[in-house]
């Protein structure tokens, strides 16, 4: 006799489930269970994944939930069919959105209105009926049962019996069975499963400690007494329910009553509603496309017309004309509102998207194939991603909410999962390790999965030196591995918006994430499986910087047009070829700078290749060096198989783009479009090694059957393996390259404007503000200090100088800025006292402003000002309104009744004759308050001593002999360990001095010796000895020895 588990929690019960869904399904399949129900707490997050796995394993998936009701009691609900699923979605959504900022609570009246297609079980001990029985309230329990029978009907309501060996179980089950008998109800046995095997109990117990903020030694009612809530076999369930055989048999009956409820694959995208009278969506799309084509191409050749007709035919035959119109509508709104944006991703393969102004890549001119974006064979959903100016992205999404209705639009969720650092912190805390030690060790852990800590200890010296591999941490690290990838909480996807034809709450459960954003309970992958289409409206600070720079450039060069930047500017390519690309979008990392100094880019195609080359995929796949050598004619272009030539010719025989991988799979192994798409998914979603190995075996088998030698087939697949997960598609690289080139052009011709804009919108890019200022200075731009009368809210340009903003000063918030700038509208501040009289500033912030020189033009001594502020009778704030009266406002940030500015004035009148800070002291204060060395670099103070020790500056390194052993020094910038071709660890960082950046490569042997110094924060100024290497127009150092820079 078999059994069906109808009450199972997965890790998606968020810290109340320790059994992976894959394990549970596999175990149930091994036990020959015909069905399985997943019932996480108040969510269906795992439903899509569970459905897929269960169906694959030959098990009927039952979609369910353990719902928390308004009185805090639990109720188990199972969907019998798609209608039941839809009602589950509505109930869960109402429970979440009806209880904002608190735990979800479903109302009984919602159950009554959404009862169809559902089966209800009376729940665990926290169910209303068992709870009342445990309290001895038998008649109330019966009343409650009658109430639920009235909602769901007698045939759809079961009394749930558990025997998880808790005190009182026997009498509780006896009472429940008696109640069921009296009311003529059936019972159903369940085990309230929270993990697959008994041995996983301790992980569940630890997760419970994390959830309840307790330690193992603490007592908490949520912690379970024993390890009995595992996925028991049918035999075990039968044995522990030997007194209730019918309850066991009924689980099979319930399994029979349910059918898979997820209606996957239905077309749920909305129709475009703003069609001109009598016009169809297809007709209107055609009209807009050709109207845009007229503007884009001016002269429509037959080639262009044919291409557009071909694309429109495919779009309409696949039924995505409404989708294209909706995206057009969104970007059209952005254009009307002058919000800068750029389409990215494979949409740039589409000429229609180009004509609709969705992308800026002319796919026809670039020879990009539309079929890589959409094809009749693959028939997959189009995926359009658009970057918007980060300041205004929310206005675009708000437009969509208004237009399609807030009940039909939601943001896609993400699952925040346990990684090494978070798992270590949370579990160590629960296991009562000292907080200081937890913090010290957690900070050393790199951003890796929590089941990779052991591997990281082997590879990374800073971890070995930390002592994390001591025996007392063994169990902890084992637990970290066990929770790897478990979800911790639901978050908000950065840009994913989903729009539905029908109210979303009937298709997918919704809930509030942080900041009140309503998100779907499915992430982007699961959303698509449901038939919904995600639109990625991303927020890109680079767009904001471009927009600001373009505006300020136009103030001096009125004819400047960012969109009309010449794409063949020799000065820009000359700069790129020197590797001087710090600040350039996508081209600024050390690897990119190094590539550019060797690559000799001469056109946008080279920039596209560059953007695609410096990715983990091509790097791990050993494609960078062959590409450069072949591009420069230093190596012959060869192909492993003649069939690869037409696919790889454009990239000199090297696999560079995702599309090429798909084509190889199709041509060499004869993969069907579906199989090729699966390969793409495995590659782009960094799936498991097992999945990759499976598809690899399939590739090789089919390639051999297709006439390719097994050795060659294996080699070809090894390229694909190496490439997996982190490669760009060509169209995406083209979209990024266009922005990259244009930002390079702006840096080359308008450095003050572009660096001011970049600095205004930090954080973004690879470098912090100080490094950007070093780079700006290297380009002849003067960096000016903040000035209370001259600085704005953002960095500004004064001739060829950039002025540091007031916002850059530590502690300056939006409201402070607003008060200062409003007061300044009445004229510049004439003195420090005048400033105090006219505005209100927090005392600490005022000291910060003085410290970094904000008042240098109003008063000669920073020390005297700080003395005046510190000694005046003002506990926390300086209020201008108290200047002429002793009864000031009572608003936050100012204090009533205090003599504030008045007392300062008094203090100013009696300033002691104290010397001002030294220039070195001011330097330190400025860096502390701004994060920027305004006038000179830290290293410049050490230069004479370094010169005397033979330490070479970055400026002089270029002149040094190739291969010579040299010593240099500077501030280490962004040490990182990207994946390498060999799998060995190599670290890269830049040393910054007053003249610029020197890139340093640290290979495995040196890294194992000195790596701890690079990756243990705070990283001190360093002295590096190594071999100077000239590569193309650039140079770098292969480190031999790294040490803290001696004072």
């Amino acid at each position: 006799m078999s059994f069906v588990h109808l009450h199972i929690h997965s890790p998606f019960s968020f810290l109340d489930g320790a059994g992976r869904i894959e394990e549970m399904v596999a175990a149930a399949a091994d036990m020959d269970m015909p069905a399985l129900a997943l019932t996480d707490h108040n969510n269906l997050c795992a439903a899509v994944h569970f459905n897929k796995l269960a169906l694959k394993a030959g098990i009927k998936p039952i979609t369910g939930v353990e719902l928390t009701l308004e009185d805090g009691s639990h109720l188990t609900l199972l969907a019998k069919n798609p209608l039941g699923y839809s009602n589950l979605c509505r109930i869960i959504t109402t429970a979440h959105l009806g209880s904002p900022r608190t735990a979800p609570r479903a109302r009984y009246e919602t159950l009554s209105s959404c009862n169809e297609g559902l089966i209800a079980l009376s729940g665990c001990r926290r169910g209303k009926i068992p709870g009342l029985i445990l309290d001895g309230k038998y008649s109330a329990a019966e009343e409650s049962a009658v109430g639920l029978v009235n909602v769901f009907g007698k045939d759809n309501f079961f009394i749930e019996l558990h025997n998880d060996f808790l005190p009182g179980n026997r009498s509780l089950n006896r009472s429940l069975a008696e109640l069921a008998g009296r009311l003529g109800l059936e019972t159903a046995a369940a085990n309230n499963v929270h993990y697959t095997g008994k041995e996983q109990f301790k992980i569940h117990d630890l997760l419970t400690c994390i959830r309840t903020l307790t330690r193992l030694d603490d007592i908490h009612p949520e912690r379970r007494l024993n390890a009995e809530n595992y996925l028991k076999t049918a035999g075990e369930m039968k044995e522990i329910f030997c007194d209730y055989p019918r309850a066991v048999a009924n689980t099979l009956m319930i399994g029979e009553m349910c059918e898979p409820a997820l209606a996957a694959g239905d077309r749920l995208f909305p129709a475009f509603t703003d069609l001109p009278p009598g016009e169809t969506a297809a007709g209107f799309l055609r009209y807009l496309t050709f109207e845009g084509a007229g503007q884009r191409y001016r002269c429509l050749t037959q080639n262009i017309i044919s291409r557009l007709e071909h694309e429109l035919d495919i779009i309409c035959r696949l039924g995505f004309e409404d989708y294209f119109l909706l995206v057009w509508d969104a970007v059209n709104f952005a254009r009307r509102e002058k919000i800068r944006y750029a389409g990215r991703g494979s949409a740039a393969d589409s000429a229609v998207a180009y004509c609709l102004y969705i992308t800026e890549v002319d796919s026809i001119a670039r020879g990009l194939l539309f079929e890589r974006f959409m094809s009749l064979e693959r028939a997959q959903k189009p995926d359009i991603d658009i970057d918007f100016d980060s300041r205004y992205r929310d206005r675009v999404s708000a437009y969509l909410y208004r237009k399609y209705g807030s009940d039909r639009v939601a943001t896609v969720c993400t699952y925040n999962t346990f990684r090494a650092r978070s798992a270590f912190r949370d579990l160590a805390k629960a296991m009562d390790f000292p907080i200081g030690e937890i913090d010290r060790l957690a900070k050393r852990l790199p951003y890796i999965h929590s089941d990779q800590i052991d591997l990281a200890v082997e590879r990374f010296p800073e971890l070995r030196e930390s002592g994390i591999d001591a025996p007392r941490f063994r169990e902890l690290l084992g637990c970290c591995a066990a929770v790897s990838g478990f979800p911790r909480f639901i978050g908000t996807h950065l840009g994913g918006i989903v729009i539905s034809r029908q109210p979303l709450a009937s298709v997918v459960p919704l809930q509030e994430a942080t900041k009140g954003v309503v998100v779907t309970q499915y992430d982007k992958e699961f959303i698509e499986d449901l038939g919904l289409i995600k639109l990625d409206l991303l927020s890109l600070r680079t767009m904001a910087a471009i927009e600001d720079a373009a505006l300020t450039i136009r103030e001096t060069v009125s004819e400047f047009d960012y969109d009309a930047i010449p794409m063949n500017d020799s000065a820009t390519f000359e700069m790129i070829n020197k590797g001087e690309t710090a600040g350039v979008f996508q081209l600024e990392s050390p690897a990119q700078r190094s590539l550019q100094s060797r690559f000799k880019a001469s056109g946008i195609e080279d920039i596209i290749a560059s953007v695609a080359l410096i990715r983990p995929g091509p790097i791990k796949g050993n494609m960078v060096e062959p590409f450069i050598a072949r591009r420069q004619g230093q190596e012959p272009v060869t192909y492993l198989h003649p069939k690869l030539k037409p696919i790889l010719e454009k990239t000199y025989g090297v696999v560079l783009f995702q599309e090429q991988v798909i084509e190889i799979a199709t041509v060499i192994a004869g993969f069907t479009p579906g199989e090729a798409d699966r390969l793409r998914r495995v590659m782009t979603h960094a799936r498991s090694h097992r999945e990759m190995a499976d598809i690899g075996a399939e590739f090789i088998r089919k390639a051999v059957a297709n006439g390719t030698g097994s050795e060659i087939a294996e080699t070809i697949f090894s390229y694909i393996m190496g490439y997996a997960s982190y490669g760009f598609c060509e169209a995406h690289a083209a979209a990024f390259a266009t922005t990259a080139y244009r930002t390079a052009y702006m840096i080359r011709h308008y450095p003050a404007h572009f660096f001011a804009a970049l600095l205004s919108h930090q954080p973004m890019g690879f470098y912090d503000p100080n490094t950007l200022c070093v780079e700006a200075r290297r380009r002849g731009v003067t960096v000016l200090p903040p000035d209370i009368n001259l600085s704005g809210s953002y960095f500004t340009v004064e001739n060829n100088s950039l002025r540091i903003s007031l916002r850059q000063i530590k502690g300056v918030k939006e409201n402070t800025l607003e008060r200062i700038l409003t007061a300044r509208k009445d004229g510049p501040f004439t003195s420090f006292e005048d400033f105090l009289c006219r505005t209100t500033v927090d005392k600490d912030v005022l000291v910060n402003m003085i410290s970094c020189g904000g008042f240098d033009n109003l008063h000669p001594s920073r020390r005297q000002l700080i003395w005046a502020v510190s000694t005046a009778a003002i506990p926390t704030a300086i209020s201008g309104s108290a200047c002429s009266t002793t009864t000031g406002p009572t608003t936050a940030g100012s204090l009533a009744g205090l003599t504030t500015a008045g007392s300062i004035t008094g203090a100013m009148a009696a300033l002691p004759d104290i010397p001002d800070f030294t220039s070195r002291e001011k330097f330190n204060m400025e860096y502390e308050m701004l994060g920027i060395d305004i006038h000179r670099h830290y290293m410049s103070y050490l230069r004479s001593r370094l010169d005397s020790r033979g330490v070479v500056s970055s400026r002089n390194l270029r002149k040094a002999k190739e291969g010579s052993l040299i010593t240099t020094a500077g501030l280490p910038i962004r040490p990182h360990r990207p994946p390498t071709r060999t799998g060995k660890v190599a670290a890269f960082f830049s040393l910054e001095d007053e003249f610029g950046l020197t890139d340093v490569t640290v290979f495995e042997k040196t890294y194992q010796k000195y790596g701890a110094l690079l990756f243990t924060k705070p990283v001190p100024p360093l002295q590096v000895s190594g071999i100077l290497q000239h590569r193309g127009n650039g140079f770098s150092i292969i480190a031999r020895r790294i040490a803290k820079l001696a004072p």
Partner: protein
Amino acid sequence: MAKFINKATEIRCDSKGNPFAFLFNKKWFRVNHVLEIWKDTGTWWDGEPEKTFFRVETTGGSLYELYTDDTGGRWFLYRIYD
């Protein structure tokens, strides 16, 4: 009221492993009913073994709690109810 005992005891079990008689104060008590069975993993992080508890009613109508842990068949009389 319950009296805490927690002392090792001798026990006779049936074929399912449930106690049917136990020794207390040199006298054997026959188990009439096993009223409840529950399990407690205790402080597993300190290496404490899982215990299985039995609340039993003897033929004389008295209530006792017995437990065994999974370390090799040892049994304990845990509590006596008045």
